[in-house]
Each structure stands twice: as structure tokens, then as C-alpha cells.
């Protein structure tokens, strides 16, 4: 075990993937010599060479489109898109091809590729560097979507994603890159995709969250605790496929559900969870399901970003409302 922040944990995952399987390739803008703008790929080009850890031209469509070809031809490309706000030039490639290759060839071809990309706000960045766009990808059949909130999960999930037979969009919340250090196993290990984690068990209400909002929810737990409210907190980790079972079991126990995410409300993952739980747990529910989310507006420049992003106080306030309903 070693103390690692999320960057170090991701770096360790990439190291093990490259070491274990010679078909793994890393490619993207500034990932080689520079080690990535966040240093996630630091030192890997030096260890594995320029044929394995590749600086590409500035072209997201080029990176993802050629990764599709590499994947079809037997490699396991791990592409980095420098910020998720710049993934759009690659959108056509992801939606029209990566997501569909297996289905349209009835299994003859597949796309075992990973697109790693930093996401979400709270770091005073420039425009386009702070959005939470996971829903667009969750809404696309044929893509898997992951967003860890801790170093340990980041490592285990990234390794699962790399060795998964299908395309995975791996979101890395920038704000959490260096926020938390924890004990992480140094060797290779996987955490299965599609399994949520109960961060803290509780009785009165289920809080479901992921990414940057998990630490905010943990703070909210304390505020709620002071008011005598025992909340259960679930970190989804995988957003597609989604672990509905864990949420259902939790709501069965607590009778109340709050979903917390940074992305805008409309058609955010909260909407899907709320609808599904309303269908499946109707007899358990003792209060309306609530969503605590970003607003249906464009992520403002950094002066107002912390008003857009749900704070622990706002989370606790809204959760308390459904508990006292």
C-alpha cells in the first residue's frame, strides 16, 4: 500500500496496463514528453517508449477515430482528451462508430478503447474547461461511462476499463485530482464496472452521487448528522451501466432518495435515476425524490462557478427537506 492522490493512482494504473499487455497504447495531446497537462502520464513515455506513449497532433477526431482503427486491429488504445470540453470534434467518431461497431457487425468487430478525460468544475479554469457532460455519453447506447471520486476507485476502475472489451468514457474530476490522498495497492487490481459503492450506511435517506459531488455529500453528511439525520451515501462510480440494484435496496430501507450531481438538471443522470426508482420503489417512497444539481444554464466563468455547483450546505438543506416532508 502507498499513499496516492488520484493522479498518482491513475498513473499507476496506466503503468500496470502497459506492463501487463503489449497491446495497450496511450495517445493524446501532450501525453508523452510533457506527461500530460495534469501529469497523469508522467514518466510513462520514458519507461515504455514513443511507440507506446504517443504525442499526437492537436486533433480529437484524429485521436479517437484512429483509436477505433487501432482497436479493431487488435490494440487497446487509451486515448486522452485533454479536457472533456474539447471532446466534441471526436463526437462523431464516438457516437457514430465506437459505440456502434460491435452492434452493426453483429460482433465481428469491436472497439476495446478507453477515452480518459478530465471533467467538472471548481478549479477556476477558463471557459470550456469545467463542464460535466456525462449525460450525453450515458445517453448513447454502446458506450460505457465511468467517473471515480477516489484514488483507489480511479485505479481499479481504469484498469477494468482498459481490459473491458467495449468502449469506455472515463471521466476524471479535475477538482479531485490532488484533493485526497489514500492508501492504494501498488500492484495490478481491478474494480468491476457497473458496481456502486456505499460510502456510508444510513437509515433516513439515501443520497446517490458521483464525481466531484461525493466529497460535498460527505461534508453534507456531517451537517445532517448534527440535525439527527442519518443519511446513506452511495457513490455510483460507474454511470453506465448503472447499479440500480444498490440504489433500489437502499431506498427500500430508507424510503427517501436524493440524487446529487454537478451537471445541469434537465436530463442529467438524476432524472433517469428518479424515474427508475419511482417505477421500481413506488411503495417504499415516503417523500418526493429530490435532485440537487447544477442549473440548466451554461457553466459560468469562474467568478460564479461556485454558485452553479451544489455546495454541501445546499445539499444538506434540500436533503433535510425531504426527510422532514
Amino acid at each position: 500500500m502507498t499513499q496516492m492522490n488520484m493522479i498518482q493512482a491513475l498513473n499507476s494504473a496506466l503503468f500496470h496496463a502497459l506492463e501487463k499487455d503489449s497491446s495497450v497504447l496511450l495517445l493524446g495531446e501532450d501525453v508523452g514528453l510533457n506527461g500530460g497537462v495534469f501529469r497523469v502520464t508522467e514518466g510513462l513515455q520514458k519507461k515504455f517508449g514513443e511507440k507506446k506513449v504517443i504525442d499526437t497532433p492537436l486533433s480529437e477526431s484524429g485521436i479517437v477515430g484512429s483509436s477505433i482503427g487501432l482497436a479493431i486491429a487488435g490494440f487497446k488504445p487509451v486515448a486522452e482528451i485533454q479536457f472533456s470540453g474539447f471532446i466534441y470534434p471526436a463526437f462523431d467518431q464516438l457516437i457514430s462508430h465506437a459505440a456502434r461497431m460491435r452492434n452493426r457487425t453483429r460482433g465481428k468487430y469491436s472497439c476495446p478503447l478507453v477515452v480518459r478525460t478530465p471533467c467538472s468544475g471548481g478549479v477556476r479554469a477558463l471557459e470550456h474547461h469545467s463542464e460535466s457532460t456525462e449525460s450525453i455519453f450515458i445517453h448513447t447506447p454502446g458506450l460505457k461511462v465511468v467517473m471515480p471520486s477516489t484514488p483507489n476507485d480511479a485505479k481499479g476502475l481504469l484498469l477494468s476499463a482498459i481490459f473491458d472489451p467495449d468502449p469506455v468514457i472515463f471521466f476524471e474530476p479535475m477538482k479531485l485530482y490532488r484533493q485526497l490522498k489514500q492508501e492504494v495497492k501498488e500492484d495490478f487490481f481491478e474494480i468491476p464496472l457497473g458496481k456502486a459503492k456505499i460510502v456510508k450506511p444510513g437509515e433516513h435517506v439515501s443520497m446517490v452521487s458521483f464525481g466531484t459531488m461525493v466529497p460535498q455529500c460527505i461534508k453534507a453528511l456531517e451537517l445532517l448528522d448534527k440535525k439527527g439525520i442519518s443519511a446513506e451515501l452511495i457513490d455510483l462510480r460507474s454511470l453506465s451501466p448503472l447499479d440500480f440494484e444498490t440504489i433500489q435496496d437502499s431506498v427500500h430501507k430508507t424510503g427517501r432518495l436524493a440524487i446529487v450531481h454537478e451537471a445541469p438538471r434537465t436530463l442529467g443522470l438524476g432524472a433517469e435515476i428518479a424515474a427508475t426508482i419511482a417505477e421500481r420503489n413506488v411503495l417504499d417512497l415516503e417523500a418526493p425524490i429530490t435532485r440537487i444539481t447544477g442549473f440548466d444554464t451554461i457553466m459560468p466563468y469562474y467568478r460564479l462557478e461556485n454558485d452553479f455547483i451544489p455546495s454541501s450546505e445546499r445539499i444538506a438543506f434540500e436533503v433535510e427537506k425531504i426527510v422532514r416532508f
Partner: protein
Amino acid sequence: MAKKTVFSGKVEFVQVLDKDGKADKTLLPKLSKEELKQLYRWMVFARIADEKCLKLQRAGRIGTFAQILGQEAQVGVALALKKNDWLVPSFRENALIWALGAKAEDIYQLFGGFEKGQQFSGLNILPISVPVGTHPLHAVGIAWAFKLRNEKKVVATFFGDGATSEGDFHEALNFASVFQVPCVFFCQNNQYAISVPRKKQSHAQTLAQKGLAYGMDGIQVDGNDVLAVYRVARTAIEKARFGGGPTLVELVTYRMADHTTADDATKYRTKTEVEYWKKRDPILRMQHYLKTKRLWTEKWEDTLGIQIRSQIEKSVQIYEALSQPQVGEMFDFLFEKKTPELEQQKNKLQNWKNQEEGKV
């Protein structure tokens, strides 16, 4: 004949002042003394204002910031543009934006987290565009509108060497050429796209030659020579204005600073290389030239410095005096008319803020 050459092209390189500021008289553009001094003044202003930005960033007063240090000769284009022409910039054109009349505080605002800094009021400048390579298409559209309306106006658009790898860049060149719109493409080849050097960006010998593939002229310019930048820009802009179609201009320059304040360029380039370019500084070069023309004295330089610094101090004061935007502002400009749902969300946030502030 079964085999023949069906296309061959050439790309010229233009330099008026050599690295020591000595002029090639045959290429000197016709400029008045005042215009020559103006070019110099703009460059000095940009350098000082840019440095101030960096200081503000280091002091936590603005966010991530992209310096233009070393690329000040871009102001040559300001002199070539007419009042009704347009600029569609990326994020490394502050010198040019200032030269066209924007206030130092506009740039401080936009890097300081205020959308309002993107307005450049009174000027035909589009907001700075962060998604690399996307905006040249907007320049094409604006130029197309001018052509459709028979207006003799031109659009200049700027982007980096890295941008030439994006698909949208190629689509912009193609549209511009197919529709023969009055648009001039300026590629600031500053040798790097963050850490990726120019030679890894494209296997082509020049970036200018990419224009040839789309049927437009491509020309390479010493981008640290403000007179060459002006000369080539003026020719291309006037050609576009009078129906001659678009041009791709490659300005060969160097990014003297880090990519942004979040970058550390020592990781990927050598001191020797930086020193090489330092000797080709655009301001010093023009200074030497002005000296030979007896247009530059130390006294003038000192006065200029004092004037510019005091002007910039005023801009900083204006910037620092800005109050935090109202939270509701984030809902106000999405559509011309707010939807009922947005109105509700705005009220909810406003109430939450009031409640929070009431607590303290």
C-alpha cells in the same frame, strides 16, 4: 502523354527587417513616421499589459492566462485592417486586440472570470475562442455575408500551428476558397502547441502550403518582423477586399512564455532554443530600425513607458473595482427571453443566496 505535372506550387517567405533590424529597402512598406512609431507603441503597450496580466494571475487576481510575450508583431495586422473590417481571434491575440482599440481591462476581465470582458464594445471583434481551430469557420461566414451584401469589408482570423491539425480548420479553408470570400487566415506558428513541437504537428514543410491544397495563396512571413507582418497582411487584406479571395498567412514566431500560467515550458524545450529566439525579439528589432530612421530616442522610450504604465494602472484599478457579478446573471443571456423554468431556477438560486447571506 500519359504522365505530366498537373500542379506545382510555391511558398514564399517574407522578411523586411532582419534579426538585427536592418531593412531590405526593396520590401519596405510605405508607412509614415507616425505609423512606424504607432506599430512600436502598440508592441510596447502589449508587452507591458501582458506582463501586468501575468502579475495579476500570480497574485490570484485573475485566472489561467495565456501570455503573448514574443508574439507582439501581430499588431502589424491592426494597421492593415480598416475600421469596418472584422477580427475573429483565438486566445493569443491580446496584442492585436489592444492595438485595435480594446482596453487593457477588457482582457483582464475575461481572464478574470467575467463574461463581459468578451464584449470588446465598439469593436468588430468576436469573443476569444478557446476550442482550438473552431472559429475560422465563423470568420468565413462573416466574410461570406460581406460578399453576399457586396460590402467591401474583410475578416482576419487568427489561430495557432496546433489548430491546423483540426478538421474545422480545413473545412474553413475549403469553404473560404470555394466561395471566394474576403477572409484572411493568419496562422501564428509559434513553434509549439503546448508541449508538441511544430514538426510533430505536421509533416508538411510549411503550414502556409496547406492553403495551396485548397486553391488559395499561402505565404510565410517572419512573424517577429512587424513590417513584414504589415506588408503581407495589407496585400492579402486588400486582395480579399477587391474580390481576390482568401489567403493563408503563416507567421513564423515563437512563444517566449509558458503556454499558459498552468504550464511549465522547461519540461519540453531547451534554454538554447529560447535564447535563439530572444535574439529575434520583435520589439528590439523594430527599435533598431527606428533608431536608424532617427525615430527612436531613449527619452522617447522612457516617456512612452511612463505613459503606458500609468494607463495600465488605471485599467487595473477599473478591473479591481468591479464587483462580483450578480448570481442571477448566469440565467439572463441564454436566450433573448428567459423560459419559465429558467426563471424559476434563477429565483431559487437567488433565494438560496439571500438565505445564505442572511445567516452570516
